């Protein structure tokens, strides 16, 4: 043995450690990959060794390689091994590796549950700390559910170091397991007033994160936060709170009013820029939430803007950036006050820093007016030319389009200018936003009728120069504009002057290199074009020219027929046949143009993207109803015939929903949007124009008017938008002159027949008349549809699940799952059963989840109903706080009120909960008996699972206690192994050991875990455990069974196997120890046959088993002792030889106490009974004796406890 060890240690001298690995990699710069793969081979060898130090070293190296991009998930199991090392050094390495590479998809992650639980309850705070840190990185819904209760206990740990970590990790737990939010929230709230600033900050942090997503549920905390804000000096906490208020104020304007003053004070007083900035930000949020107009608020706005200007003018670029960022928030509601700083912002546009330019760009959005739009865009276009890096250029491009198209092209006075800007933008190389430009072109061409002629001429030019745009299809973004160009030219071909030339351009062989969807549009639109040319020619009587053009089509179309893109191919071959037919007719000299043009008759109107959604579902149509009968549930999921296609499909979609990641969704959404925007065939059910105007009462129809003649209609070559700027200036100047003239002459003549009806073009906008009277057609919507944004919400938002009302008192069913075993769960709620079933295969699990979600939703509905009544109450509290004038003393009083009112309510709830749960259990019992047949199969499978696990289970349970004590913080010497399982009964067949645990959430229940071990060579089955109930203690049986019925043990035992089952007992009084007589009956089956056997036992409920290890702060402990309502008693035991540390460990372990404080050979300890008795101990060690002084609410309990302790100690 020792030899092996030495050998191992010498081997290790030759192993590489992390430093050697790094050095090696640095020395092998040329063949790094080869070297690393060699190292990974070595690591694999090291992982195979038994020595944990070698393994840890290997895992440590793997963590480094993970950073370099190597996948180390294959070592997940080894990582878990290292995590479960008893030494902190190794444990830390293991947890670090796990936090770097574990995720929800790691399948071995469920093996960590017990290990983490053990570490969480370790007496060494750093073991706990490292487990919490690790868990925060890889917590999964399963882990969250299983460990929520343990973490919650840690939230009131004696060490602030653990408390703050436990508080912080709760956020992750909530995210993964939303059901835990409500039960844990009261304690989280308590932590806001923790004496330790770190814990307080952590709690603020968590609540802020929660409130950011669902602010309305946290409004009731406002008074508490207000107090913190006025009292705290920690800038971190202040910043978080102030940010939180920023999120709350939009919901409660009165809160804003209350906040303004302290915030303004902070702005004036603080020297920390970060705090100042956040204050300004929140003040802005407050001002936004308040309907403006109150005089003193304009002062606040001024203060903010003024402070921001100081920031922007600061030489520190960071402050400048943030100043601009905040400015953009003010812009939305108070554009006037920002506009006065236009100079500053335009200056920032020239800043060398890209981030700052981007922010300035944002601000520009709100600064444009009809007057300066052209000027600003011109400036932006210059930036576009200068910009390096596509990101910034793309950003500029989208900003230009945003600015121009905002509020229905409100600021554009000259659409020709806008079209030329768009065309100029197509010259950008490598932009991703080709589709944006295309969408704009289409939109403008369709909606502004007056511009179509000009647009068509520009588009024709684009098509002519298509080779420039599409020269490199890899940088394909921009070729999207050809899509728009082709469509516009086709659709509005009547405006085209050189149609022949355009048609030729569209038929060039180069076109076939374009993406399929663009080619398809090309093909479709060249027919439109062809039709209009045909008509022209026939009208003039040039039959030959008409035939020529037909021939051209027939010659060139085959190149599209060969296309690999189905859409293109289909359209092309269809059209080719059509044209061949036309040719035949033409040869017979039949006029065809009329008929051909009739193919494309009718005008297309723009349709709102949401229109389809708004089409009401006809009465009597239930979209959720089954078309066929759904397959019955009794069938097992796997055997379902696949032929029921609609079911299959539904399940399919259900599956996919959670799996599609965010990115993919966004991409698809983008694609869909783009398709809808670009696709001219998207529900264009050309309704009569009259109806359309009836539907859109906001915008009156303006007759289309000829274009201002001062603008040339055709710009030769590529257009230059710049010239429009000059022209525009001239035009305006002329207008002004005219006006002046009019004024002088005092003519009261009206402006003419073209009065501007459109409310958008108001006189107030510096009296600039638009160059074209534009007909901005609003998009069509179905009748009765109301415009709304509600359908923009993302249903997959993970934070949505956390939208839970927290003011409602805890309901009965809401508890954190406590550690229990399978069979106990079976008796309990259906919820806990779900994940078990889920493990078998993935499909049912998802279904289950879905089901749960539905239930949750139902519950929410109920809650909402309840809320109506409760809200009144809650509002009252808040109202009171919000309405009171703020003399500080009254604030503190009212603040304590809402808390006070919730606290006493809890014990009652607990009782309710208990009753309810019993009822639930009973219900479940009934159900299970009904559905026994159905469940039969499942149960079988479960059992086999159990069997597999049983060995492991047993192993753990024996080892667990031993190690948890070994990590003692108090001393380094190792402790002897301890086990809380003691012998219940034994005969030649079976051995039973048991342990009793109090149930934290139910004050009258304890759980008895019994390990059954088969000692014989026969098979044990049909085990049944029965206990003779006493008045005080009863076994919890399923409803319907009498007190004399036993409870079946939910497994069978093959020879040599052991397994654990749990039984729940209810107790009335817990001050005395109890003994219950019971019998285990079972059938022994071997080769000779089977016999019925019995084993009697006595179940001993010691008083210690009613205690739950509860950590306690020393200050709370002191208060408790001072309170004086505790009874005292003491014992003394002589002849103690073991060390004090061992002694404490024993008391902690066997009697469920925790050490509050230890000074030399004297320690104070604390525990709580399940019914809430406080038990405090003072343990002193003398030479050879130990004295224990105890204090407790109940004298009987105390004396019994001390007697038990005496017995334990005297064995030492």
């Amino acid at each position: 043995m020792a030899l092996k060890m030495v050998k191992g240690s010498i081997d290790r001298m030759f192993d590489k450690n992390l430093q050697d690995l790094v050095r090696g990699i640095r020395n092998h710069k040329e063949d790094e990959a080869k070297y690393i793969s060699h190292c990974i081979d070595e690591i694999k060898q090291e992982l195979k060794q038994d020595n944990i130090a070698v393994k840890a070293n290997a895992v440590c190296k793997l963590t480094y390689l993970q950073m370099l991009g190597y996948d180390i998930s294959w070592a997940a199991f080894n990582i878990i091994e290292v995590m479960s090392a008893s030494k902190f050094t190794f444990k830390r390495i293991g947890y670090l590796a796990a936090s770097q590479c574990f995720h929800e998809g790691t399948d071995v992650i469920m093996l960590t549950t017990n290990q983490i639980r053990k570490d969480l309850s370790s007496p060494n705070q750093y073991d706990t700390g490292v487990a919490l840190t690790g868990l925060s990185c890889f917590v999964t819904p399963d882990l969250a559910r299983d460990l929520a209760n343990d973490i919650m206990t840690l939230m009131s740990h004696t060490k602030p170091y653990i408390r703050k970590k436990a508080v912080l990790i709760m956020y992750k737990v909530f995210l993964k397991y939303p059901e835990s939010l409500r039960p844990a929230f009261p304690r989280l709230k308590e932590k806001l007033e923790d004496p330790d600033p770190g814990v307080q900050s952590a709690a603020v942090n968590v609540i802020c994160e929660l409130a950011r997503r669902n602010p309305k549920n946290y409004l009731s905390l406002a008074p508490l936060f207000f107090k913190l804000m006025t009292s705290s000096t920690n800038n971190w906490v202040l910043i978080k709170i102030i940010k939180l208020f920023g999120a709350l104020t939009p919901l409660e304007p009165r809160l804003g009013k209350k906040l303004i003053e302290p915030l303004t004070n902070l702005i004036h007083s603080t020297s920390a820029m970060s705090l100042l900035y956040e204050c300004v930000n929140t003040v802005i949020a407050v001002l936004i939430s308040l309907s403006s107009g109150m005089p003193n608020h304009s002062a606040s706005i001024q203060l903010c803007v003024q402070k921001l200007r100081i920031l922007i003018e600061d030489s520190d670029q960071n402050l400048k950036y943030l100043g601009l960022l905040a400015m953009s928030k003010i812009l939305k509601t108070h554009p006037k006050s920002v506009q006065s700083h236009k100079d500053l912002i335009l200056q920032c546009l020239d800043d060398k820093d890209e981030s700052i330019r981007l922010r300035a760009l944002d601000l520009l959005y709100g600064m444009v007016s009809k007057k300066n739009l052209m000027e600003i865009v011109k400036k932006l276009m210059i930036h576009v030319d200068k910009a390096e890096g596509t990101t910034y250029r793309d950003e500029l491009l989208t900003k230009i389009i945003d600015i121009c198209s905002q509020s229905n092209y409100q600021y554009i006075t000259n659409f020709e200018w806008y079209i030329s800007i768009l065309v100029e933008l197509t010259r950008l190389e490598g932009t991703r936003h080709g589709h944006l430009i295309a969408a704009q072109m289409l939109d403008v061409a369709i909606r502004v009728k007056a511009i179509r002629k000009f647009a068509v001429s520009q588009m024709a030019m684009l098509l002519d120069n298509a080779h420039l745009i599409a020269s490199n299809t890899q940088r394909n973004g921009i070729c999207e504009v050809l899509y728009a160009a082709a469509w516009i030219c086709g659709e509005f071909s009547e405006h085209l002057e050189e149609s022949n030339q355009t048609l030729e351009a569209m038929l060039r062989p180069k076109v076939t290199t374009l993406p399929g969807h663009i080619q398809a549009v090309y093909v479709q639109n060249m027919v439109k074009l062809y039709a209009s040319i045909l008509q022209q020619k026939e009208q003039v009587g040039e039959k030959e020219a008409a035939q020529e053009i037909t021939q051209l089509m027939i010659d060139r179309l085959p190149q599209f027929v060969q296309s690999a893109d189905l859409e293109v191919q289909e359209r092309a071959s269809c059209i080719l046949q059509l044209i061949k037919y036309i040719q035949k007719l033409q040869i017979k000299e039949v006029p065809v143009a009329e008929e051909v043009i009739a193919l494309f008759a009718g005008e297309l109107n723009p349709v709102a993207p949401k229109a389809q959604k708004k089409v009401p579902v006809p009465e009597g149509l239930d979209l959720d109803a089954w078309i066929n009968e759904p397959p019955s549930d009794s069938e097992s999921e796997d055997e379902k015939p696949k032929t029921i296609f609609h079911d299959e499909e539904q399940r399919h979609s259900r599956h996919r929903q959670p799996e599609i990641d965010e990115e993919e969704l966004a991409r698809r959404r983008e694609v869909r949007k783009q398709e809808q925007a670009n696709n001219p065939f998207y529900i264009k059910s050309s309704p009569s124009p009259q109806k359309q105007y009836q539907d859109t009462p906001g915008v009156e129809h303006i007759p289309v008017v000829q274009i201002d003649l001062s603008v040339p209609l055709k710009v030769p070559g590529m257009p230059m938008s710049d010239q429009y700027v000059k022209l525009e200036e001239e035009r305006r100047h002329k207008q002004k002159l005219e006006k002046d003239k009019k004024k002088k002459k005092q003519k009261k003549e009206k402006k003419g027949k073209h009065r501007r009806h459109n409310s958008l073009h108001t006189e107030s906008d510096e009296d600039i008349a638009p160059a074209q009277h534009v007909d901005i057609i609003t998009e069509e919507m179905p009748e009765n549809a109301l415009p709304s944004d509600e359908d923009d919400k993302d249903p997959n938002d993970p934070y949505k699940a956390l939208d839970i009302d927290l003011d409602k008192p805890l309901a009965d069913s809401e508890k954190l799952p406590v550690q229990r075993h399978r069979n106990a769960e079976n008796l309990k709620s259906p919820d806990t059963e779900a994940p078990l079933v889920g493990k078998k295969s993935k499909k049912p699990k998802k279904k289950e989840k879905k089901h749960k979600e539905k239930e949750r939703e139902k519950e929410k509905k109920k809650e909402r109903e309840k809320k109506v009544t409760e809200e009144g109450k809650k509002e009252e509290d808040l109202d009171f706080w919000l309405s009171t004038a703020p003399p500080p003393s009254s604030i503190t009083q009212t603040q304590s009120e809402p808390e006070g009112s919730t606290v006493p309510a809890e014990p009652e709830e607990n009782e309710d909960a208990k009753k309810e749960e019993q009822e639930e259990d009973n219900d479940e019992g009934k159900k299970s008996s009904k559905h026994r047949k159905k469940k039969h199969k499942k149960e079988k499978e479960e059992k086999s699972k159990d069997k597999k696990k049983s060995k492991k289970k047993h192993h753990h349970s024996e080892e667990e206690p031993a190690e948890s004590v070994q990590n003692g913080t108090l001393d380094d010497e190792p402790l002897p192994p301890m086990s809380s399982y003691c012998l219940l009964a034994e005969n030649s067949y079976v051995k039973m050991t048991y342990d009793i645990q109090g149930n934290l959430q139910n004050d009258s229940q304890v759980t008895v875990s019994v390990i059954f071990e088969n000692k014989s060579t026969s098979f044990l089955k049909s085990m049944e455990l029965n206990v003779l109930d006493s008045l005080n203690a009863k076994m919890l049986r399923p409803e319907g069974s009498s007190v004399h019925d036993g409870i079946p043990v939910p497994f069978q035992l093959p020879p040599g196997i052991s397994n654990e089952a749990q039984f729940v007992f209810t107790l009335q009084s817990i001050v005395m120890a109890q003994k219950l007589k019971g019998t285990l009956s079972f059938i022994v089956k071997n080769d000779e046959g089977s016999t019925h056997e019995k084993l009697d036992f006595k179940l001993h409920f010691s008083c210690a088993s009613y205690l739950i290890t509860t950590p306690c702060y020393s200050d709370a402990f002191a208060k408790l002792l001072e309170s004086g309502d505790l009874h005292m008693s003491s014992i003394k035991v002589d002849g103690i030889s073991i060390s004090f540390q061992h002694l404490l460990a024993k008391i902690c372990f066997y009697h469920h106490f925790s050490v509050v404080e230890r000074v030399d050979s004297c320690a104070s300890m604390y525990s709580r009974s399940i019914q809430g008795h406080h038990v405090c101990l003072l343990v002193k060690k003398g030479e050879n004796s130990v004295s224990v002084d105890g204090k407790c609410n109940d004298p009987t309990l105390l004396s019994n406890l001390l007697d038990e302790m005496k017995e334990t100690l005297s064995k030492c």
Partner: protein
Amino acid sequence: MIKAILIFNNHGKPRLSKFYQRYSEDTQQQIIRETFHLVSKRDENVCNFLEGGLLIGGSDNKLIYRHYATLYFVFCVDSSESELGILDLIQVFVETLDKCFENVCELDLIFHVDKVHNILAEMVMGGMVLETNMNEIVTQIDAQNKLEKSEVRLRDSIMSFNLKHDHNISMMCNLCCLSFNTILYTAACL
């Protein structure tokens, strides 16, 4: 929430990467590369904020970085974090490293990335700021190092205990050490 913390040098070599969201190893490397490209081409006297955009999920996120000598410290955060606060946090982080390593330089980070992780774990947990007080962080780190050392001592003492009690083994060991020394010696000669 902090989404990721990256440290890399002027050439883009990662020195520490901590992601608080799940990304595959390839994506992680890609993110590091992209971030490096974004950050490295910025001048010294521009602002320390960068809009990450598509980099790590959504436009809500921002890159906040600082450049110290040969190293970039980059935090990717969402809008619930205060920008200036995070800048301070980076400063605290670097100062803590300086204290724990005594005049920290890139080499310290290269060879002791595990220690850097441990220090970081005392500051940021699961993407949320845990502690900003440097003294508190250093105290906890020291305490954990002490615990680690005591474990090493314990292991050594057990070893020596075993050796004392088994004479043969100690002979063996001496032999081994001897042979080890000769190896070293020959290595030195070569």
